[in-house]
């Protein structure tokens, strides 16, 4: 486990994996400055696809819509999820365990099955595909992540300062704002980021529940990929990668670890049992 050759082999594997992950991304950024319509060679530098993206392309409006939509879902998920995590602290351990099982369902069930069963439900009650259906569908797949991440904070945090604040004359509302909220805020933030990204990206749920003829960014990209090479998509990809880099750097500066962001806080609690 400690010999030099072994360590080199392991490191080589790591770099190969990283290369595998990043070559396509780097290639797409590279191609976003290529003049050829169909992404072929020879390579001629241009920025015209960026101009297209910001002027005539339908990708940007879809991206903005997806972003607004994701924010809306995130806000609701964080509020409802935090309430839920707070309330769970007052469950008996046995009941909390049962509740946890149900809470994990939307994580464990493949999104496609969730989406189909929701489509059945909404058709049954007469709503069918609609923005409300899509909103609720996205909400239910991100809610468990928020609850689990915030609950993790509650489990880890020391609850006595809350009692101390109450004895110093703080009303329950003040206790929450002054003591509880600062302690659980990192969990809410991580849950919110998780929810935001998942909503922004969730193709499957949106594909089944969006009103016919409407598009979010994922559904639009899906249709566009199927049709033909679209150089403005390269430009958008490059921009999104750039944003992701900035976000990730920001988050690590704020002290988040990769595991805590993906909902795996201390170990592998996410899967539970």
């Amino acid at each position, binding site marked *: 486990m400690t010999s030099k050759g072994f360590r080199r082999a392991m490191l080589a594997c790591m770099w190969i994996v990283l290369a595998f992950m990043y070559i396509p991304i780097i290639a797409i950024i590279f191609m976003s400055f290529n003049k050829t319509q169909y992404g072929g060679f020879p390579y001629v530098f241009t920025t015209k696809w960026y101009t297209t993206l910001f002027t005539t392309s339908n990708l940007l409006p879809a991206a903005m819509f997806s972003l607004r939509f994701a924010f809306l879902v995130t806000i609701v998920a964080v509020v409802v999820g935090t309430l839920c995590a707070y309330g769970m602290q007052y469950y008996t351990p046995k009941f909390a365990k049962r509740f946890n099982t149900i809470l994990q369902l939307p994580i464990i069930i493949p999104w496609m099955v969730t989406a189909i069963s929701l489509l059945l439900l909404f058709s049954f009650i007469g709503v069918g595909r609609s923005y409300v259906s899509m909103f609720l569908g996205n909400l239910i797949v991100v809610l468990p992540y928020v609850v689990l991440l915030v609950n993790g904070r509650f489990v880890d945090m*020391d609850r*006595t*300062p809350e*009692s*101390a*604040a*109450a*004895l*110093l*004359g*703080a*009303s*329950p509302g*003040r206790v929450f704002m*002054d*003591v509880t909220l*600062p*302690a659980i805020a990192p969990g809410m933030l991580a849950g919110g980021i998780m929810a935001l990204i998942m909503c922004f990206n969730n193709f499957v749920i949106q594909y089944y529940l969006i009103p016919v003829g409407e598009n979010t960014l994922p559904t639009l990209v899906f249709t566009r990929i199927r049709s033909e090479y679209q150089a403005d998509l390269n430009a958008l990809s490059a921009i999104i990668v750039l944003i992701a880099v900035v976000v990730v750097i920001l988050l690590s500066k704020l002290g988040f670890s990769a595991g805590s962001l993906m909902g795996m806080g201390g170990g592998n609690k996410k899967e539970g049992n």
Partner: protein
Amino acid sequence: MAGLRVNDLKKSFGDHEVLKGVSFEVESGKFLSLLGPSGCGKSTILRIICGLETADSGEVLVDETDITRVRPEKRNIGMVFQNYALFPSMNVAKNVGYGLKMQKVAQDEINRRVSEALEMVKLGGYETRRVRQLSGGEQQRVALARALVTRPNILLLDEPLSALDRKVRAEMQYEIRNLQRQIGTTTVFVTHDQEEALTMSDQIILLHDGNIEQQGDPHTIYSQPATIFASDFLGKANLLAGKLACEEGNWFLTDGKVKIRLNHVGGKEGDEIKAAVRGEYFEFCEEGAEGANPFRLEKKIFTGLAWRLIGRLGNQPMDISALGTAASELEEDRDYFVRIRPENVVYYNV
């Protein structure tokens, strides 16, 4: 300043009856210790007094006003927690001033009183420090300042010293007691450490299994333990088994080999009894002196303050502790004679 009275508190968690009807009273300005092993219900009493826990029945009165149903934030009771319970998101001044802010005291008044309180706990100038940068002892002082700065009617201390190391702990014992005398706040102190309770308190209540085992001032509790549990919990007491006997109006414990005089408080001749005697109450004497009993010294251990002499009084094991010079002459595996005054012997029927 106010007196505290607690009437017939009962509390169960599930099937477990934690408090089985506890009543006591603390005079205004006094320092009361609730002493007992873990699980005896002492912390629960504290949590009921401050309102963090609700009793199943019974009442809590401050200056004869029933506060049993008052919400914790309206009780004006200060509390220091075992783990300090400081607010990690605030600096020292914000922590200490929190209660004043809740009382809507003006900011410059808050600043003044916070500095005063910090001076009082010897942390002058610590206002802008982050809580996490402080040592355990310093955190505890901040917690104390925070609890006292609002001038509470009652101060509750929930094992505040148990997380500190020995030296800091002794210092804090002294300081807390001093501060309490100075301010005169009625204080209830919870601890499982008998030495701490004995050094700090005006009054001690010994709890066992949800009941009061004994209450009184430290000296009485120590020298006159009312039960076998009390004698054992408050420092190591030796238990001697024997029969109650009476000769010419004087009462004794005898087991054939030893004969110890005691003050009769009940029972008749021939009763099986157990007597509790503390090792430090024995004195060495000549054979044939009044009350002399044979003691075989088997092992002597130096503990710093005194010698611990392990041996047998008659046939029964006995730990005697003796101060410095006298004991250093004694040799192991030799027979000596010891005696004890009758007022230092407490006995129980078995």
